Structure formats: C-alpha cells, structure tokens
C-alpha cells in the first residue's frame, strides 16, 4: 500500500518505544501474580467441564477450595496433579468428586512435585493439541471457503436467546455478513464464573457459554458453506473471566475475541491489577489458537469527545499492541479498535475521520483494523442514522479498514431487529462495491487539513505515551487519562481474585504457550 498521508515514522518509533517501556513495567506485575480466573482456565484447558449441583462450575469449586486454603500460589495445576497422582484418576473424575464433596484437594497428601508436574504436563499437552487442532481446522476451512474481500462486514446478534440468535445470524450471513458477534448479556462481564449450557434469557445480549459457542459455530459453518465463504464467529474474552472465555473460544473455534488490556478496568470497573494478568494469559491462548483479538479503544470516544481525544485511541493502540506482542500475538491477529464518532454536525468532520482512519491504517499496516460505527451521536432518527452509517462505510472502504462493524439504523433504540441488520448489510455492500477502488483513485493534498490532522493526532499520542512512561500506566489510569474515567489501583471488582505466585508456582500452559509462541522473557 502506497503512503496516502505522510507519516512521521520517527514519531511512530517514539510511540512504540514508549509503549514498550510502559508495558515492561506491567509485565513485571504480571509475572509475579496469578488470578482465580487464570487458574480456572488452566483447569478448563485440562479438560474439566460441568458444574456442581448448585450450578457452580467445577473449575470454580476447585480453585476456590485451593484459594481458601491459601495455596493458590502454587498454581491449581499442581493441586490437580497432586490429586491425580494420589488417586490415580483423571482430571474430570477428580473434579466431579470434589464437586460432590467427596474430598477436598488440599487434604490429599502432597506428592513428589516432579512426578506431579510430569503427570499434569501429559494431560496439558493434549489440551494444547486440542487447540492446535482447532486452529488447523480453521485454516483448512478458510482455505476451502476463503472469506470475502475486506473490509469485512461484521454484525452483532443480541436477542438474549441463542436459538433466535442463530436464526438472525444465518439471515445475516445470507445477506452478506462475514463476521457474526454474539453480544453478551448486560451483566455477564461482572460474573466471576462462566454460565453453563445453552441459554435463552439474556438482557441486551446472550450469555457466553461453551454450549452457546458450539451451537453458533455449527450454524455458521453451515451457513458459510451455503454462502460459499467462511464465516467468522466472535465473542468476548473480556470481563472477570477473560482467559476462561478465551479457552472456551479456542476449543470451539471462535475466530475473534473482543479482548482489551484496559477495557474492563475503564468500562466495567474491574480492578486493574487483576485485568492486566488476565489479559496476558487470555492473549496467549488467543495467540496459540490463531484467534484475532478486537481491542476496545472505540469505547473511549463514547465517553469523551472524538475530536479532542483521538490521540488517546492511538496511544492505547500502541499499548495494546505492545502487550499483545508480549503475549505472543502476531500483528495479523490484532484487530485494533477505533471508531467513527466525531459529531456529525461538525464542519469537515468527515475529513477528520478520514485522517484518523488513514493514519491508523498506515501505522499498523498488517493489523486487521477494527472500525466501529457511529453510536454516540446517533438518535432515534433512523433515516439519519442510516445515512451516517453510509458515510462511515465510505470512510472504511476509502481507507482500507479490515473489519467494519456495521452501524445499525436503530442504534439509539434497541439491539438490532432482523431487518435492521439486513439494511445495514445492504448499506455496506452498496458503498463498498460502488466505491470499491476509490481508495486507489485519490490522493490527499500534501499540506491539507487531512494531513495536518493526522500529524497532530500522532504527535499528541507520542507525548501522551511519553508522559505515561514517567508515571506508569496504572497511575495514568488512576489519573483518568483514558476515556476520561479514573479508576483507583486498589479499587474495582475482582481484586480478591489476585494471588501472588509462590516460589513453586506451576502453570503448564504458560510454559507451553511461551515456547509455542517463542516468547522470551
């Protein structure tokens, strides 16, 4: 791709360097700690499924048991392995017995650590293989039925009922959608466990459960075969169960995950120390599984002004990128988020949107940039909304965005009706097709408003990042530097799930992932 706007690559380098230094600090914290959800994820990856008779997932029961005994610093894997060695049973059997209260993990006699690790590693190996098999399956399906050209059409379903979601998703695929995201029920991100089974009752979204993933995956494989292109499925590796959902997605062959290093902190008031650890482990899973993440910088523009705070989006992308690299993600897996959220009544606002989209496109040339639609200034005027969505689609195709999350004409009213989605797909298809090559046909005037705006945003991002290197990212968040939201380092939900790793901490997946992903610390 030729350079449409001139990029000051030296400033970009400054940004990347600052981001690296910022995330180095975070990585220190990450290496020293683990969390309950990370440990539950380990159990899930070891093949543990199901819930106890009160409906509490067995993974939760077991991790809680260890944690209550103050032993989680060893890693739950150790205690599971210990039980395996002591009882000579497999992980699931042990989990079920623990679930029925037949014994408690910490009560079993401590076995020889080397043997325990050896036992665990064998099972864990199979867990990893399962993920790699799913990845290979995706790769071969994608070869067989290649997805359409970018920008990909990404729509959401959110009826609350997985079976209605399936209908709506299949309808969308028939109309031309490339990517389907099943939005989660309103409060799921704050649940410290993952619900189980197929679900039909959610508010503003459908619960993320492994069974729901499976049901939708099957429907989309089927719809994709009919449509002749592979359909990507998205869910949320986000909230208090970030890594567990990553693990579920990995084995159910999801293709993308909303997954951000700071979203939960800022928008769900989840404790930052917890989140930073969770995001790292979840990203390693996504990395190994070949899942593309979608970061959430677009959300900043819903609470702040998109014109004034555009640079915070870019700064955050550099941080997400850096943390992503440190978790083994490839650039090609980074659906960095941004959004078309400038007040539509602003004179020349479209120029500034183009400037931002083009800037981000060029700075991250190999990342499948995720472009979010206008939402904040959308009102109940569905005609106006449809039109603004059209301009958003034009900006997307004019600047070569990778993933276009389609705006709905009823954005201000309700989660999409079946026709809303159809109309938005038609909107995007019309614009993308009718202006397909516009991108190659235009150049921007060298010292014009678009270039100037891009320069300004990049410079501001650099100075923001440099100021964060001084105070540290946690302090920056406390100071409200992102999304105008301030979160205290010791506040927020989920802090109680943070556990300092012991000397003997053992997590077979961490080790395997690092090797698999060539992460050198």
């Amino acid at each position, binding site marked *: 791709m030729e350079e449409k706007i001139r990029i000051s690559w030296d400033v970009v380098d400054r940004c990347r360097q600052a981001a690296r230094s910022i995330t180095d600090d975070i990585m220190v914290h990450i290496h020293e700690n683990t969390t309950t959800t990370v440990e539950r994820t380990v159990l899930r990856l070891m093949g543990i499924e199901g819930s106890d008779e009160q409906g509490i997932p067995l993974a939760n029961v077991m991790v809680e048991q260890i944690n209550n005994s103050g032993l989680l610093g060893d890693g739950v894997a150790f205690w599971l392995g210990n039980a395996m060695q002591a009882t000579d049973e497999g992980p699931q059997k042990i989990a079920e017995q623990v679930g029925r209260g037949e014994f408690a993990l910490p009560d079993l006699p401590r076995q020889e650590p080397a043997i325990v690790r050896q036992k665990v590693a064998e099972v864990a190996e199979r867990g990893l293989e399962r993920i790699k098999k799913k990845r290979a399956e995706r790769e071969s399906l994608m070869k067989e039925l290649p997805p359409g050209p970018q920008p990909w059409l990404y729509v959401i379903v959110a009826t609350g009922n997985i079976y209605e979601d399936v209908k709506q998703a299949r309808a969308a*695929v028939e109309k031309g959608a490339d990517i389907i995201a099943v939005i989660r029920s309103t409060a799921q991100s704050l649940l410290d466990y993952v619900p189980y089974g197929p679900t039909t009752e959610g*508010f503003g979204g459908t619960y993320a459960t492994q069974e729901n993933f499976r049901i939708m995956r099957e429907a989309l494989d089927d719809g994709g075969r009919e449509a002749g292109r592979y359909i990507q499925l998205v869910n949320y590796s986000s909230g208090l169960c970030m890594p567990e959902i990553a693990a579920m997605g990995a084995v159910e062959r999801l293709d993308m995950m909303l997954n951000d290093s700071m979203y939960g902190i800022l928008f769900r008031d989840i404790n930052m120390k917890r989140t930073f650890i969770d995001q790292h482990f979840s990203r390693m899973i996504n990395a190994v599984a070949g899942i593309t993440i979608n970061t959430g910088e677009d959300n900043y523009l819903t609470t702040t002004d998109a014109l004034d705070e555009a640079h915070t989006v870019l700064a955050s992308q550099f941080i997400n990128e850096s943390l992503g690299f440190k978790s083994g993600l490839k650039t090609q897996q980074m659906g960095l988020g941004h959004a078309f959220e400038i007040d539509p009544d602003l004179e020349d606002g479209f120029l500034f949107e183009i400037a931002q989209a083009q800037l981000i496109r060029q700075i991250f040339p190999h990342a499948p940039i995720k472009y979010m639609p206008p939402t904040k200034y959308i009102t109940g005027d569905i005609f106006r909304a449809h039109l603004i969505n059209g301009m958003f689609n034009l900006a997307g195709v004019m600047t070569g965005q990778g993933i276009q999350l389609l705006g709905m004409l009823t954005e201000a009213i309700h989660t999409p009706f079946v026709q809303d989605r159809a109309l938005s797909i038609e909107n995007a298809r019309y614009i993308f097709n009718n202006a397909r090559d516009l991108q190659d046909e235009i150049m921007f005037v060298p010292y014009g408003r678009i270039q100037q705006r891009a320069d300004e945003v990049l410079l501001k991002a650099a100075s923001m990042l440099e100021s964060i290197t001084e105070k540290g990212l946690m302090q920056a968040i406390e100071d409200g530097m992102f999304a105008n939201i301030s979160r205290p380092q010791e506040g927020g939900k989920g802090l109680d799930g943070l556990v300092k790793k012991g000397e003997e901490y053992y997590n077979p997946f961490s080790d395997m992932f690092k090797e698999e992903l060539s992460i050198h610390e």
Partner: protein
Amino acid sequence: MNELKELRPYGDSFNDGKIQVSFSLPLDAGLEAQEVARQLAYKMGLEEVNVVDMKNIGEGFSFFIIYGKLKYGVDASQIRVAKAVSRSMSYYEINDFIREHIGRKILVVGACTGSDAHTVGLDAIMNMKGFAGEYGLERYPEIKTVNMGSQVANEDLIKKAMEVNADAILISQVVTQKEAHIKNLTEFVDLLEAEGLRDRFLLIVGGPRISHELALELGFDAGFGQGTKPNDVASYIVQNLVKKV
C-alpha cells in the same frame, strides 16, 4: 381550533392521513407474504395500502415497507400532558432560589442502577461539565452531589442516600431491553416503601426512554427523557423541595 378535533397525519395535504410503516415477517417474500403484510396494514386502520417494497432478508424472513392512509384521528384540542417542570430556571436563579427559600445546601445522590453501566447521561446531569452548554449539578454552589456511577445495587443506593441524608435520589436507566428498567425501578420503589422511606426523598428517574408519565406510573416523583438539561432537573428539585418543606 376546530380542525384539530379529528387530527390525522399529514403527507401533502391536511388530514390526508398518510403514514409509513415497516416490519418483517417470518415468511419468504412473495405474493402471499405481501398479502399478509397488506392485511396487517388494514388491521392497523390503513386504507389505500401500498406495499412499496418487499424483499427477502435471509433465513426465510422478508421485510416490507408500506404507505397508506390512516383512517383514525385524534382530538388534538383535548390533549393534556403531565410535565415535570412547568418552568426551567437558570443556574443563577436556582442558586438564588435555594439561598432564599431553602436556606441550606441541598443534597443529591445519583446512580445508574442494576446492571446498567451507561453513565454518560447521568454524568451529563450531575458532573461539573454538564450538558448542552448547561453546568452540571456538581457545579452549583448550593447543591452537593454524590455520583455513585454505574451498576449500583438498589440497596446500596438507598443506603448511601440515608447515609448522606439526601434530598433527592437520581436514577438513570438506559437499558430498556425486555423492560429491564421497569423491573428495576419497581423494585427500587418497593424496597423504599418496605422500609417506610418513600416520602423521605424526591425520587427522580431519567434516561432516553423515560417520560414523566412513566415515572409517575412507577411511583417516582418525576421522570426526564431525551435532551434533559441539568437545570431542568435542578429546577424540578428546588421547586418541589419547597413544597415538601
């Protein structure tokens, strides 16, 4: 005005009744589905029904756009609507009014309750910055505010309101899917009533789908919808606090 007695929609001439309707049906597009759409339109009271667009939207669904003449009218000369505030005062007027008629600072507690995490609307009313050129309540020298933020449990909000001895409680409800707000708001009022605290506070609810009428129905004192400005809310509070005292 007599012509308001049986007022109908207006397309391009008075009382021509012209309206536009759209919806989907779980039927494949075709003459039969079109006929179903037409019959639905007739049931709605449309005449000269014109199905101007019909298309398949996938998975056996079809979408219809219809124009027609509505045969019903409404007596627009008899419309009366409940309003929360009859006159919105300005920032300065409100502060003066508090000094003069209340003689102490007033205290307001606000929250997005239940699982609602949409704080932008409540912040627009409560925080310094305000909304649409109007200062937020926090900026008023005579008003003290506690903004509890998002996803606050009804119990916690009541506890806080008692603790700081609030004059008014502000609740924001943005998510209305499956009538989630109705459930949440009803529960709140029930809780207060169970504890015998209902009359202690001015109860105010706001959000894009909230109307004053709905608020009254749910047992609140006032409701504020789309485009509310902070001074509208402050005007309501001070005018009604005076009545209460």
